[in-house]
Structures are given as C-alpha cells and as structure tokens.
C-alpha cells in the first residue's frame, strides 16, 4: 500500500517531458524583398528585410512586409533598413521613388545615396551657409530657388547627422 503511494507521488514529482518554451524576441516571419538601387550602384538586390523607413514627400513612413502597393516620392532624407533583429543600416539619399509592388516587393530608386559616415559635417555646414546666402541674395528667381532647394538638402543632412 505504501509502496503504491510512494510510486504515485514519485511520478507526480518527476518533471514532465514537456520542453520548456524559451521566451525571446519574436523573429518576424514575414519579410519584404527590398531592392535599393542607384544609377551607378545596387545597394540591395531583392534582399529580404524586416522593415524599411523612408522619408516620403507626404511624411516619414515605415514599410513592412505585405504593404499595400503604392508609389511614394521621396524627399532628400534618410533611408533606414532593418534586416533582422535590431540591427539597422542608414543611408542619406538625395531623393527618388519608393515603389511597393504586389507580391511583397519594394523597390527604391534614388540618384545619390551614401552611408551617414561618408558625410562631412564641416562641408555640410559650409555648404548650408553658402546656399542660404545665395537664397537671400539678389540673384535671379531661378538661382534663388536652386539655392533654396540645396539649403533644404543640407538642413536635412544636418538633422540626419546630428541624430545618428
């Protein structure tokens, strides 16, 4: 009698063979296929990434897998690519278009882009001062508009470099 009780209690105490579920950060199952191309270089060609943050003309947006197809013009600004986990890479782009195609594909075409480390804050500051001077000066309307556009780019660059 006691042996039976001992056996049953022993069985209850024995650890179950259920594997312990390890809790970690969820690995995103769905990725979007990104192609980030410049006229002279392809930074990504159909690479599966988790999220892409772009500076669209209508506002900053983050593009995840299965985004609705859309075409967005980009302002001069940062493109951030999150490939997996928390690692993200950033580029500053001069502007272009981001197109989400049906079938979970994202194509970003920009004319000039470089990683933030490739920029020199000194050059940006000097360029910005120069551009603001021309924009406020008394050249032709066209020249002033050109300078205004350049000043916008430099200001966006300063903001990007400052908040690395």
């Amino acid at each position, binding site marked *: 009698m006691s042996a039976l009780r001992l056996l049953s209690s022993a069985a209850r105490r024995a650890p179950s063979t259920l594997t312990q579920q390890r809790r970690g950060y969820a690995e995103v199952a769905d990725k979007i296929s990104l192609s980030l191309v410049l006229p002279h270089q392809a930074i990504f060609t159909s690479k599966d990434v988790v999220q892409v943050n772009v500076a669209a003309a209508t506002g900053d947006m983050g593009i995840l897998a299965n985004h609705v197809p859309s075409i967005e013009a980009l302002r001069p600004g940062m493109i951030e690519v999150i490939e997996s986990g928390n690692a993200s890479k950033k580029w500053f782009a001069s*502007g272009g278009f981001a197109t989400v195609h049906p079938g979970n594909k994202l194509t970003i075409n920009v004319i000039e882009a470089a990683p933030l480390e490739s920029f020199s804050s000194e050059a940006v500051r000097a360029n910005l001062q120069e551009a603001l001077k021309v924009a406020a000066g008394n050249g032709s309307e066209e020249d002033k508009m050109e300078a205004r556009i350049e000043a916008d780019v430099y200001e966006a660059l300063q903001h990007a470099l400052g908040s690395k």
Partner: protein
Amino acid sequence: MSSATWRNFFTYNKYAQITARAVRQSLKESERVVAEKRGTTALKYQRWENGVGGPQVFLNPEEDKKVGKSAAV
C-alpha cells in the same frame, strides 16, 4: 520638397539633379572626388543634311572639352 514652388521653374529631372549635386558636395573629401565625376555631363551634337554630316559641336564648348572619354561604369 518643402519649397514645392520649384515647380514653377524646373522640371523634376532638374530638381533631382540639384539635390543629387547637393548630396555629392557634402561627402568626405576622399569620396567626393569619385562622386563629382558622376555628376558631370557633356553633350556633343552634329547636324546632318542631305546625307552629309556637319561639324560636331560641343553644347558647352569650354567645359565639355575637359571631360575626357571614360569607360561606361
């Protein structure tokens, strides 16, 4: 595109070239040299009449002559 009034003066192409030029001019010295080459454009044209070609003319005479021939990247 905060100052969207550039539409009154330029095409989108011109606007994109201006922003690209601004980005190139902000790179570090080492990378800027390579980048500047990407920004140069030169045009040479030739007028044909009755099957005979005229002289080949540079669009911007002095600047374009400086741009040498290079292998297409």
